[in-house]
């Protein structure tokens, strides 16, 4: 008798347990299950926006040092990493026959100087002759006038004078020509010397050698760089910022620079220049950020992450940005009031660096707003509020 009752009880219990499990399962999954959500309240805070971009370390002033004409490199005097001073010899091109040409022009100039001397001597001679001829001519003219000599003699002397004068003029012209020659040859010599000097590549400014693109013996064309220099004190970061998140960018903003080589170290800097042209292809604005104290051993071309902190708004209504949803083309939030959900369109203002977003209108302080949810919500969603959803 007892056993039978136990059996029946056990059966009923088992059945009830199964049924309870079934009901629980139905309630937990499927359309009847509530959506778990987290809720927060609209509060007042001071959201401070932040701009973030990546940049590349560049030198403000960099120099390409190369020959002005094609030629072969004869000598490279410095190597990558060397610190050079303005005017220092960096490299030299092979002069080929330039030295010989220089010697030839020097010799020609010397000869021209000699020619000038010769011409000057001839001029002096001609001048002396003309004076003698002039004196003679004058004396014979007197004598002829007095009739002491025949007029033919007088005319002969006058003719001699004219001849001496012509000779003098000739000598003067020869001297002038010789002088011109001398100028010309001097100029040629100077030119050759200039060319020779131009083959010596000198540092245009103090700087650091960053590349050595040609070695002795290699041929380079005009304008090709043999060495590259940067001015070591002019490193800055070329920052690229997404156009749609660059509002508030201005010169002088403090910047936090994190170099890729030292991710743990934040370097201080400020926006030094904002370029007027932005990159239309990548849709980025470009700005230069200088270091407050240039770091040592930074490499040009290194990537840097830059955070700019903008002045925020005081005592604004804020929400976590995860609360913002898109629905029917509108931005809004799900507000929970009196156990009912309603979608309220809002206007969002600035975004804070902490993930908060300023609410310009649509909500008031203290409104309960859904932040996270397991699923997309609709008006009649049943919700269950939890403190945090999985994964966090």
């Amino acid at each position, binding site marked *: 008798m007892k056993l039978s009752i136990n059996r029946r009880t056990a059966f009923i219990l088992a059945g009830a347990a199964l049924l309870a499990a079934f009901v629980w399962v139905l309630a937990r999954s499927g359309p009847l299950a509530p959506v778990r959500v987290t809720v927060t309240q609209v509060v007042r805070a001071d959201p401070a926006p932040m701009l973030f971009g990546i940049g590349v370390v560049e030198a403000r002033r960099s120099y390409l040092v190369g020959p002005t004409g094609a030629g072969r490199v004869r000598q490279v005097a410095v190597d990558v990493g060397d610190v050079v001073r303005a005017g220092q010899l960096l490299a030299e091109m092979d002069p080929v026959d330039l030295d010989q040409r220089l010697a030839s022009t020097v010799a020609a100039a010397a000869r021209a100087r000699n020619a000038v001397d010769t011409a000057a001597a001839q001029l002096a001679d001609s001048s002396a002759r003309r004076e003698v001829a002039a004196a003679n001519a004058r004396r014979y003219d007197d004598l002829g006038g007095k009739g002491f000599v025949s007029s033919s003699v007088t005319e002969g002397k006058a003719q001699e004078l004219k001849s001496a004068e012509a000779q003098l003029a000739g000598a003067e012209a020869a001297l002038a020509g010789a002088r011109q020659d001398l100028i010309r040859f001097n100029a040629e010599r100077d030119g050759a010397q200039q060319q020779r000097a131009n083959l010596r590549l000198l540092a245009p400014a103090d700087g650091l050698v960053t590349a050595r693109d040609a070695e002795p013996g290699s041929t380079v064309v005009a304008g090709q760089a043999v060495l590259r220099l940067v001015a070591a004190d002019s490193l800055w970061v070329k920052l690229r910022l997404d156009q749609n*998140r660059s509002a508030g960018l201005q010169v002088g903003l403090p910047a936090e620079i994190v170099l890729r080589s030292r991710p743990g170290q934040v370097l201080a800097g400020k926006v030094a220049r904002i370029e007027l042209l932005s990159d239309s292809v990548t849709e980025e604005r470009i700005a230069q950020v200088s270091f407050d104290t240039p770091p040592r051993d930074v490499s040009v071309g290194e990537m840097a992450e830059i955070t700019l902190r903008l002045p925020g708004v005081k005592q604004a209504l804020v929400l976590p940005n995860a609360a913002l949803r898109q629905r029917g083309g509108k931005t809004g939030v799900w507000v929970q009031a009196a156990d009912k959900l309603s979608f309220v369109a809002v206007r969002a203002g600035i975004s804070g660096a902490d993930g908060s977003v300023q609410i310009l209108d649509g909500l008031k302080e203290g409104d309960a707003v859904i932040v996270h949810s397991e699923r997309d919500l609709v008006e009649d969603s049943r919700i269950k509020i939890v403190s945090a959803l999985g994964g966090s």
Partner: protein
Amino acid sequence: MISLAGRDILHSWGKFVLTGMGLGLLIGATLTMAGVYRGMVDDARVLLTNSGADIWVVQKDTQGPYAEASSIRDDAYRGVLGLPGVAQAASVTYLTMQVRHGDTDERAMVVGFEPGQPGEPAYLLAGRRLLRGHYEAIADVKTGFRLGERIRIRRHDYEVVGLTRRMVSSGGDPMVFIPLKDAQEAQFLKDNDAIVSDRARTAGNPALNRPGVPGLLDAVNAAQTINHSVNAVLVKVGAGATAEAVAQDIRRWKHLQAYTREQMEEILIAKLIATSAKQIGMFLVILTIVSAAIVAFIIYTMTLGKIREIAVLKLIGTRNRTIAGMILQQAMGLGLIGFVVGKISATLWAPAFPKYVLLETADAMRAFVIVMVVCALASTLAIRAALKVDPATAIGG
């Protein structure tokens, strides 16, 4: 009249319930199988819904971006944006790749999107939306990533700032959302060795490294590393315009392929997972047959064990209807227990599956009807055997 079936079940309920549980686990497997299929379909739908787009613009003559590779210029969206009826248009990239997480690699679909534009995850499970334009990620919770963790995609580290849910590719890979520019870079960024060897190859090409043209090599190298491609443009249609009309405009004037939501669903569900669906359908049929066979065997064996009692019952005047009813009720009872256990077990183990398993109530209803019908059919074998029992065998041994 008392219920003979009920009394029999009550008498050997332990055996009965255990048998029902065994059957239930089998039914649970069947329900799960159906759930796997529903989950695949639902994943596809959710993928489309959560991208928030009305139109998918992809490379001409492709069925991208989910079913086929598609590559279009990343400024294509500007042209699309200028079309009437377009409210929003944004580029997206999709690429399945390994995401480094600690010491392990997770396979994930990396999605590049423009924050605030279509393609952004519709809701978050935890954390926040992207704030910076670079190196932040929102991950599907199935990736196993946690908030604040750093993951590595190709060459860059990303911080996980938000978690979402139900965002998986059609292949079941969980998604990781990163800013579009990073994704573009990641998609086409080669590893360092490849870059170096490519540069060497370019430098060795006399046409590209001409002595008389300084700077050409640098220009060529730079041109090679820049990528201006995306996989698709997601379009949101403005009020008053229909998706189909806008899609037609795009197809006609932009020389790009445009799919509306319905067409995309068709591609994803009818084409991409069609084979899997058939595979699962086949499995379902087999499982149903196996379940039916098992119910039939169980009921048949249970009946054979009661042949003597049935003979006695018949001898003392029990009608065939009563005996058949007893067996039928037992089969149905077994089916009921099996269904309940199956539904419970399927619901319990469904979340443990790596891919989403969707147990639809309508499917459960259908399964219930099928289970009952199958049990009823399966019991006919036993009923036939029982009706064939000769009451005379009770007399004289």
